Structures are given as structure tokens and as C-alpha cells.
């Protein structure tokens, strides 16, 4: 497939306009603000164990990444 370049200059193998390539709208929500405490949650990790975020973090600093997918 021919690469189509988007308005920000990036190439990707999917055609422009395909939802997989949508840029983020200008006013896209970005969740908790600087100074907020990150909302707590529990989710399974790669080994099926439940991880409760703040409990697991303990007293460590942390980076919490929201990404699209490990699949595609």
C-alpha cells in the first residue's frame, strides 16, 4: 500500500480518513489535571493478577501510559 501522509506529516500504512489514523481533536479531553491525585483503579496485569494502582505503586513515583493497543 502506498503511504499517505497526514496533515501533521506522519506516514502510516492505512489510508487517510481511516478511523485508525484519526488525529486527536484540538479539545480532546486529557483526564486528570496536574495537581490532581490519579484516580485509583484495579485491573488484571499480563499474568492475570489484579493490580490496584496506588497500592501497587506504594510510595514510588510512577508513569501511567494510556496507549492504543499492543495488537495493531
Amino acid at each position, binding site marked *: 500500500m*502506498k503511504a499517505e501522509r497526514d496533515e501533521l506529516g506522519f*506516514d502510516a500504512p492505512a489510508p487517510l480518513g481511516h478511523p*485508525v489514523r484519526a488525529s486527536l481533536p484540538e479539545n480532546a479531553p486529557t*483526564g486528570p489535571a496536574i*495537581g490532581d491525585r490519579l484516580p485509583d483503579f484495579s485491573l488484571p496485569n499480563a499474568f492475570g493478577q489484579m493490580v490496584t494502582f*496506588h497500592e501497587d*505503586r506504594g510510595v514510588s*513515583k510512577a508513569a501511567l*501510559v494510556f*496507549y492504543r493497543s499492543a495488537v495493531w
Partner: protein
Amino acid sequence: MRDAFAKFEAAGIKLYALSYDDQETLTEFAEKQGVQYTLLSDTDSRVIKQYGLLNQQLSKEDAFLYGIPYPGVYVCDENGTVVSKFFHDSYKKRESPEILIDAALGRITIDETAPQAVSSDDGIRIMAALHGGNGSLRQGIVRQLVTTFELPDGLHIYGEPVPQGLTATEIRVEGPDGLVTLPIEAPPTTPLHLKALGIDLNVWSGTVNLAIPLYPVGELVSECRPIDEREVELSVHVTFQACTNETCLLPETRSLTLRVALEEVDVPNLPIHTGHGQREGSYDSTPAMKRLIWRKIRKNPLRLLQFIWNRKRMERRSKRES
């Protein structure tokens, strides 16, 4: 992220990555790609919604895509309070891990091995270094060209605004087409009031790091063709004026040049991404893709038709284009 895990660990920062992928996918992904940080599975996008990050541009008709977040990163302190967050206008843009670590620690730590150039003159040492990711450029990954001033005691340089007759510090990075630079990131200046002259100044003194975030786009590094040049040249033009409280040196511009490598993009091991000369993952995600589609279809059988329809539309379009 994977390669930088040791750096996160050394800095005492825990790393979590959350997606809508099922747990089996994450198990395979972690095993095949050697991921050591915590992968979290949010299959029904519950936490993505809780954080208000559900990608609303996708509708449920987008079947297997629906449920993904607007991608971004939060960096929190020991209390879990957000100290920095990074969200961009494109899913292709993301911070180099080193920038996340700097944000957590509140300072810039440049690797000794980073490509760098130094200019020492008049006792003022200026170093320009490409900070992040072993000093290479990679599509969409935001790294920094950091200019470090080492000013002898008593000397300072200026931030904006400056009174007429003085020169504020300015840094311009010149690179090949397809290199995007973002506005400078600088530590806060210290106010300096010179009574005799009745003027207020904004100064930096000692060691100062001024960072220009930058990343390459398709013209320079594309995930759809092999990299044709392995290395490119960046020129950094640093204009400044150093002064004591009493006298000033003349304004000057120093130019430093560094050569930096271009790096392949990590692409998923799926037919659409492979064969373009990029760094293909060792994790074949085709079975995970099938599982993902099946998961969506099970929830609503109509999704199967939508999936086929979307795929046909994409194929037709790509035929038309080529």
C-alpha cells in the same frame, strides 16, 4: 519503553501501561517482546472511561477499534499526584522515556553517550546534546536538543523580556526537512533588579539547561519505507549575552554541529505493517487481532458485517490510490 525500563527502575519510577487489549494478548506481548513493566488489561475500557479518555472520534461502528483511549501519559509523585502529563494532537507523537523520567525527577539528566558538541570560550562552556533514546531520532518520538550553559560565578544570561540594548538568549535548531521543532522549554528565570539603573531583568546563572523538543515526521523517517540516510546533521545556533551586575560582554552567537542517527520505527508484526524496512516486533499479533475481533463480534454480531464492510472499503480505497 522496553529499552528504557532499566532507567525507570534506576530512577525509582514504576511504569504502567494500560490498553484495551485482553490479558492473553498482554501475556504473549510481554513474553515475546521481553516487557518488564506492568501491562494492564482494560478490556471493557472501564478505566479509560473513568479517566475520561475514551476516544470519542470512534463510534461503535468502528467495531474493533472502539474502546481505545486518546493516548497519553501521566507522571505522578510519591503521593500519586500528577506532576506532568503528555497528550498530543497525533497518536504518533509521544515522549521519549527519558523525558518522562526527567519530569518525575524534576531535572534533566543527559546520558554521557548522547551525541554532543561543546564550545568553550571566555570561560563560558556551552554544550548541545541530543537527549533521549540513545541519541537517535525516531518517527514521532519527542526528544530534546538540550543546550547546557555553564556560566562562571558572577555571570548571568537573559531570558525574555529584556530591556533595549541587551540580548535575550535564543536557540535555533537547524536540521533536515522533516524535522519538527517545538517551542523551547526553560527553567524559570530569577528576577534581578539593578538599582543603579532602575531596571528589572530575568536571568539564569550557574548551570542552565534549555531544551528544544523535536521529532522527525514522514519526510525524514517513515514507517512505510526503509531509512535511506543513517545519519543527519543538526546545527544549533545559540545567541546570548553574558553579563555581571556591573558590565556586559558583547552579545554573541555560537554554532554547534552534531550528527545524529535516524532510527527505525517499531511496528507491530501484522501484514499491513511488515515489509517496509522497519523494526518488526517479535510478537506476531495476528491471533490477538482475531481474538479482538471475535470479542467485539460476540458482544454484537452486527460488528462482523461492519468489520467486513470497513475492510472492503479500505481495500477499495487503497486500490484506487495505487
